């Protein structure tokens, strides 16, 4: 076979094709890793005028994180005193515009795929989330696995917290959400969950609450969003109750305190089952929760024997039941918003019934009767009796 023919067929042609793809697909977005800022967090607060927002970006300074030892060497100079993160704020009508504004001041590209948490200020949340949450759905760069939280007060304040235990505030905040096996008193769930909820249920969602302190944040409690607006907060106990209702408890603890002594019950597993018991004009439900766990701490009065074991089981059940009822009362009576997905439950399992309730569900929800029964099994009583 002719060499030049083979050359054209086997080498030249594929190479030309390769080059062609480079232009056709517009894939030329090569950017060195040290020419990017990996935004850890975005905070949205109320702006000076209506329709404007104060948007802040939390940007890690990698030189300082690496401890000044790595790249710079002789020229770098002093990593010790450098701040590991900076906050860049701007006023803009949308988040993307805000990012572009910041580009006027920063020499590197903002890169959002490593964003860990979206913070929304309380005030702006009360006015409504709808105008600015769109880019989180539209832009591929926003990582749907990042967290979202409504800040108590100003969101930028949360961002300015400098944790003592970690260098990177965003990583610190995000890793708090990994503690679901230790506590059920916060709303776990990421940006993807939130976007799904808020669009599936009329702009209603249960979302995490974040409270800044001087060098720490607290993610206990929850925020209730009704029609894209912040309706109010749930306390930590109420949040745990709602989590029990939703079957999202994978850990945490319940402490009972009665006349005989104290006992801390560590939850290992919680199973729940929800049933429709009456389908009248207002539906009725029955929730059964079965909790298993260990007794990890008791005071002398409740030391473990067969009788006390039963007592503890009953007390724990009662405590959990009261938490659930508190949470439900808050949602049904105060906020009158279905963020516990009862509507979704009906829609999924009783689609014909749901048609009757669908239009009036907001009114019906607060009248819905939910009977709660909790059973507890102690699996492990500890080494000493």
């Amino acid at each position: 076979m002719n060499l030049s023919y083979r050359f054209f067929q086997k080498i030249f042609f594929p190479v030309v094709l390769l080059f062609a793809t480079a232009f056709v697909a517009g894939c030329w977005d090569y950017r060195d890793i040290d020419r990017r800022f990996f935004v850890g967090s975005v905070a949205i607060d109320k702006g000076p005028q209506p329709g404007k927002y104060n948007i802040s970006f939390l940007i890690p300074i990698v030189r300082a994180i690496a401890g000044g030892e790595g790249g710079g060497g002789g020229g770098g100079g002093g990593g010790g005193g450098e701040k590991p993160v900076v906050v860049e704020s701007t006023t803009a009508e949308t988040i993307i515009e805000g990012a572009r504004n910041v580009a006027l001041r920063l020499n590197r590209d903002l890169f959002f795929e490593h964003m860990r948490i979206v913070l929304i200020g309380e005030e702006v949340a009360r006015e409504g989330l709808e105008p600015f949450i769109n880019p989180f759905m539209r832009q591929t760069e926003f990582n749907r696995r990042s967290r979202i939280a409504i800040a108590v007060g100003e969101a930028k304040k949360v961002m300015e917290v400098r944790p003592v235990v970690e260098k990177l505030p965003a990583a610190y905040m995000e890793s708090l959400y990994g503690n679901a096996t230790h506590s059920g008193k916060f709303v776990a769930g990421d940006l993807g969950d939130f976007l799904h909820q808020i669009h599936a249920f009329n702009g209603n969602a249960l979302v995490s609450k974040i409270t800044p302190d001087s060098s720490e944040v607290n993610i206990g409690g929850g925020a209730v969003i009704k029609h894209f607006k912040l309706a109010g907060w749930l306390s930590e106990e109420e949040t745990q109750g709602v989590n029990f209702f939703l079957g999202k408890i994978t850990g945490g603890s319940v402490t009972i305190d009665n006349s005989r002594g104290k006992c801390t019950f560590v939850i290992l597993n919680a199973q729940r089952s929800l049933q429709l018991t009456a389908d009248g004009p207002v539906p009725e439900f029955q929730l059964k929760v079965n909790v298993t766990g260990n007794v990890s701490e008791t005071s002398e009065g409740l030391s473990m024997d067969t009788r006390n074991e039963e007592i503890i089981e009953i007390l724990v059940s009662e405590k959990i039941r009261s938490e659930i009822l508190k949470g439900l009362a808050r949602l049904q009576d105060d906020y009158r918003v279905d963020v516990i997905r009862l509507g979704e439950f009906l829609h999924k399992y009783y689609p014909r019934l749901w048609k009757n309730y669908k239009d009036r569900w907001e009114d019906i929800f607060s009248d819905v009767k939910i009977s709660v029964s909790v059973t507890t099994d102690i699996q492990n009583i500890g080494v000493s009796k």
Partner: protein
Amino acid sequence: MTDVFSRLRSGKKRDLYYERDMSPDTSKKLKKDIKENEKEVHEYLYDCDDVITRDFYMGTTQKHEMALMYIDGLVDKNLVQEEILKSLMLMTRQAPLEHNLGQNFFNMVKEGLLTAADIKEVDNFGEVVLGILSGDTILFMDKFEKALIISTRGWEKRGVQEPTTEAVIRGPREGFTETYRVNIALIRRRLKDPNLKVKTIKLGRHTRTDVGVLFIQGIASPNIVDEVLKRLNTIDVSGVLESGYIEQMIEGDWLSFFPQLRRTERPDVVAACLMEGNVAIVTDNTPFVLLAPGTFLSLFQSPEDYYERWYIASMIRLLRFAAAFFAMTFPALYIAMTAFHPGMLPTDLVLSIAATREGVPFSAVVEAIVMVISLEVLREAGVRLPGPIGQTIGIVGGLVVGEAAVRAGIVSPIMVIVVAVNAISSFAIPNYSVAIGFRLLTFIFIFLATVAGLYGIMLGLLLLTIHLVTLKSFGAHYLSPFVSFRFSEGKDFVVRGPMPSMEIRPGYTRPKDMNRMNDRRHDTTEKMEDENADKQ
């Protein structure tokens, strides 16, 4: 040998080497007069001062004039003295020959007097001259139009040593040498089978190198044997100095990065491949034997895969595949991941990579190319220099230059790791020349990753796959166990199955006899004894 030539004659109408005007002519017959014969040979070997001629008379009678011709250094002088000169000059004195043997005298010398083992009778100058050049000794006798070629080849040669490019922990330590006969013998010692055929042809107008084509009749597919012989016979060059000459001239696709013949220094590998239906090409003057057809998988095979237990062998083979992948793509993956898709890496890793690149003046691509090239230079320098200095170069290059470059902030430490992993991976491939091929592909992948990120790397891998799928070696699919895969064809692909499960030979060579082993565990002893008795 003869049927090779006849095939040649009938097929391509090519001239044979000894029919060229520059070459000695087989049609030119020997003469009666010994002096004329000597003169004629000297005309062929004009100005060849290493040719020695020794005239002598046989026996006491001094009646029979004889002459020996050989090349100094190519013959074993002891053999010439002990087996030829001594037996003809001294032995005959003790027991004088009857006179007037006439025409029988020649046969008397050949069959009764010479104690040398390997003797051949010739009647033309072509074979005489070739014999002299090959290290044989020619015995001319006056008044006979014939001569004797006595095999006295014996020159300074390297002994059988451990192969340096294919060392194993477990397995024989013997490697091929530069001597054709020794190499053939090393193979024959492993295959005591009359079906092991050795067809020798000579290649190269000037070198006239012995090239042996070895195969096992009854296993090797005749198509492959014919194809190998056909391609070998199309070779018409001035010289063949190494099997690489042959490899490059008979491979199907010389644009490919992948060698289409397997090469080995190990007789046990050759024996194993012959038993799988391969054809071996043994070339004189080189320890490297070629095996056809080559497959992609064979690049990742080491003889130890079969000597070790199958778990170990399989794991090591998987490691080699991983190593080959990294040897091709690791710097490219690094570039694509950091420059195009940093979102795919864990945040902590991204930040630490970014931190190490802080202050590095070049982009990752330039950095990668500079590092890979300098590593290639170091490797090449290390290979060419004599042993101890080579090691020094390695240390100076690897430690001093690398460390200094990182300290000076010219290169990021991560890049040093990437390039080092890339280089070490390539050395995990058993075949050195293949490893270099993979290193070449590294550059292409770096380019693709720079243009289009992971998309480019995928594109490159696709093109590579397309190329490999279409590649064929002597009629066998290059990706053979993977394409047209049949599980029953022996469990010998990415992993190697347990030895008893490899009941049949791999199918890529289209072996005539697929059966590799029989399961006789449940045969009764009597039956086996019966069968053995039948065989005897």
